[in-house]
C-alpha cells in the first residue's frame, strides 16, 4: 500500500469501442471472495470491491460499475449512486499521479492555497481537475485529509506527504518515478 503505485491507464474501458475486460477474475476474484467472508451481506463488500476496481484500472468506469453490480447482486444504478457519493472513486481516468492537496480551513490558514498553485504550475496541469498533456498529473483540492498538524498534507496516489510547502513541490515531483 505504501509507495507509489501507478494506475493501469491502458485499461480497455477507457476506450468506448473495445470490449470490457472484467476485473473480477483470477486473483481479484479470490480477493473479493475473501472479503465477502467478512460481512453478512454481499452489499457490504461494495466499497472494497470498488477499491479493487480502482486499483486494477485506475478509475471506476460505468462498465466496471455494472460488473460490480453483477458480482454483488446489485443494480448498476445502485452502484452508481454509491460511487458518486464518495469522492475517492475516480469516475474518469486521471493522471498517473493523482495529487490531492488539502485546502480546508486548518491548512488554508497555513498557506495551502500557495501549495496548490505550486503544484498546478509545476505539473503544467494549469487547472484543478485537469490532467497534464502527458497524462502524468492530475491535481485537485481535497477536503480535510486529517493531518492538519502537518500543513499542508498532500496525497499522491496512495502516498501521504506531510508539511508540503510551495518550495518543496518541485523536489516532490522530481522524486516521482
Amino acid at each position, binding site marked *: 500500500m505504501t509507495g507509489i503505485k501507478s494506475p493501469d491507464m491502458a485499461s480497455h474501458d477507457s476506450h468506448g469501442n473495445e470490449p470490457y475486460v472484467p476485473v473480477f477474475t483470477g486473483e481479484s476474484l479470490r480477493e473479493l471472495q475473501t472479503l465477502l467472508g467478512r460481512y453478512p451481506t454481499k452489499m457490504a463488500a461494495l466499497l472494497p470491491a470498488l477499491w479493487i476496481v480502482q486499483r486494477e484500472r485506475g478509475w471506476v468506469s*460505468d462498465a466496471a*460499475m*455494472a460488473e460490480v453490480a453483477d458480482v454483488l447482486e*446489485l*443494480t*448498476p*444504478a*445502485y452502484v*452508481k*449512486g454509491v460511487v*458518486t*457519493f464518495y469522492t475517492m472513486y475516480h469516475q474518469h481516468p486521471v493522471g498517473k499521479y493523482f495529487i490531492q492537496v488539502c485546502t480546508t480551513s486548518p491548512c488554508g490558514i497555513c498557506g495551502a492555497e500557495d501549495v496548490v498553485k505550486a503544484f498546478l504550475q509545476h505539473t503544467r496541469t494549469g487547472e484543478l481537475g485537469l490532467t497534464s498533456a502527458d497524462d502524468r498529473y492530475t491535481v485537485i483540492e481535497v477536503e480535510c485529509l486529517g493531518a492538519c498538524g502537518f500543513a499542508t498534507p498532500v496525497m499522491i496516489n496512495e502516498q501521504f506527504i506531510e508539511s508540503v510547502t510551495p518550495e518543496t513541490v518541485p523536489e516532490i515531483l522530481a522524486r516521482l518515478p
Partner: protein
Amino acid sequence: MVNLTIEGRAVSVPEGTSILEAAKTAGILIPHYCYHPSLPIPGVCRMCLVEVEKAPKLAASCATSVAEGQVVHVHTERALEARKGVLEFLLINHPLDCPICDQSGECELQDFTYQEGRADSRYRDPKRFNPVEDFGGDVIYVPNRCILCTRCVRFMDDIAHDTVLNVSERGDRALIGKFEGKDLTHPWAANVIDLCPVGALLSKDFLNKARAWELDRAASICPNCTQGCNIMVEVRDNSVARFKPRPNDDVNKFFMCDYGRLNYRWVNRQDRAEAPMIRSNGVLTSTDWEPAIHAAAELIRGARVFVLASPMLSNEALFLLSALIEHNGGAGTFRVATGDEAPLPGVEDLALRRDRAANVRGAELLGYTRSESPLDSLKEGEVLLIADDDLAGLPVSATSKASAVIVIGTTLPQGIDNPEVVLPITNFAEEEGTFTNLRGRVQRFTQAKAGPGGARPSWLVLGDLLGALGAQEQFFLPSDVFANLAATKSEFKGLSYDTIGMRGLPVLSAQPAGAAQ
C-alpha cells in the same frame, strides 16, 4: 391504543402510529414531502416538523411515534418558522416556472408555499441548473424542480424491486440519477410521476396537454385488465386526458400499471356509433330510439338469442342481456384479449393481469361462457346480439347463420354488413356502472364525459329493450338495475351501490368465511 392531543384535539390511535398519521385522523394535514404511506420513511425533507411539548427539538412527525399523553402543536410559531425555512430552502434553486409546469395546480410545493411559506425569498445568488433528462418509459426528469424527497427512488427500490433510480452526487449537487442504458421500463414505473410531489417527474404522454385545473375528474375503475385498479378519469374538453390511480388499500394501494394508465385513447375514439339505425331497403338508416328499440324487440321476440358480449361491459349491461337470454332462451359468450402478466412485487396480489378486460369475472358470474372462437356456438336461426364486440379477427361469415344480427355497441363492428338494427351505447367513461374484478370485488365507476351524439348508456338501452319485450321492471338509474341484479343473482346478494360505495365490496363467493354482509 395511545391517547394524545394534537392541536387541542384528543386523538386515540394504535401504538406505533406516527404523529403525522395520527393528525390525519383528527383532520389535520401536517405538510410533508418525503413521507408517503406506501413507502419506507426516510425523514429527510424535514417539512413535517411539529412541536411536541417537553421535547427539546422539533419532531419530524412522519418519523416520530405517538406516545401516551403527548401534546403536539402543529401551528406554533416555532414549528411554522421551521417549515417556512424548509420551503425557502426548497425554493432557492427552484426555477419558479409554474406557468409552464404540468404539475402546477396539483403541486405540493405550490400548495404548502401558499399555505405557510414566505412571501419573498432572501436568495440573491445564481440558481443551480441541470438539464431535463429522459428517464425512459413515460417519464421525464426535470432536476431543477426536484426537491430530492426520494419517493421515486424508494418506489422503484421497495415496491417495484427494480432499483433503476438512485440519488447521485451529494450536497446541493445531488440529483435523481439512473444508469446509462437502464431506463424506467418497469411495467409499473410511471407511478413515480404520481408519487413525485412536485413537477420533477412528468408524464411524457401528458406533457403540456392540460392544466390541472382544467380537468374534470371522475372516480372510475381501470378497464384495461381484470385487476380493477381504482382510478380517476381526468377529462378536458370532453376528451380523456389521462388516467390516474385512485388509492384503494384493498385493490391497488396507490398504484396502477403503465399499460392501464396509458391505454385510454380508445375511450376518445371519434368513429363511434352515434345514432340508432335500422336496416331500410337494405341500407342502415339513422332513426329515433323508439323505432330502433321496437325493431330490435320485434326481431328478438320469440327467438332464441345468442349474445356475443364484450367483457368491457358493466355488470348492469351483462345482467340485462342475461335476463334477455333467460327470457327467450339462448346463450351468452365472450372473448378476452390477453397479454403477459406483470406483477408489482412490493404489493401483494397486484398485477397487470393476463386478461385485458375489466369485467371477465362479472361475465362469468352472470353466466357467460368464455371462448376463443365464440361465433362457433352460434346456432342456425338464433338472433345474434353483438354487444360491443368489434368482431376483429372473428370469421364474420359465421354471422350468416343468425336469423338476424343486432348490434348494441359503441362502434360498428368491422367487416359486417348484415345488422338489422344498431343501438349505439356509451362506453365505460360515459356511463355509470360496476365491474367485478378477478377477486370478485364489485366496484363502481362513474361518468367522466358525455357520450357521442345520440348514444345512450348501455343499461338504459337494454332496459328499454327488455321493456319493449314486456318486462315489468323499469329502470331509471343504473343503481335500479344493480338492485335488480342483487335481488336476482345470489352471488351479488346484499350488495347495492350504497354499500359498495367508491371502494367496492366482494361478491359472496369471494368473501372470507364468516364475513358478515
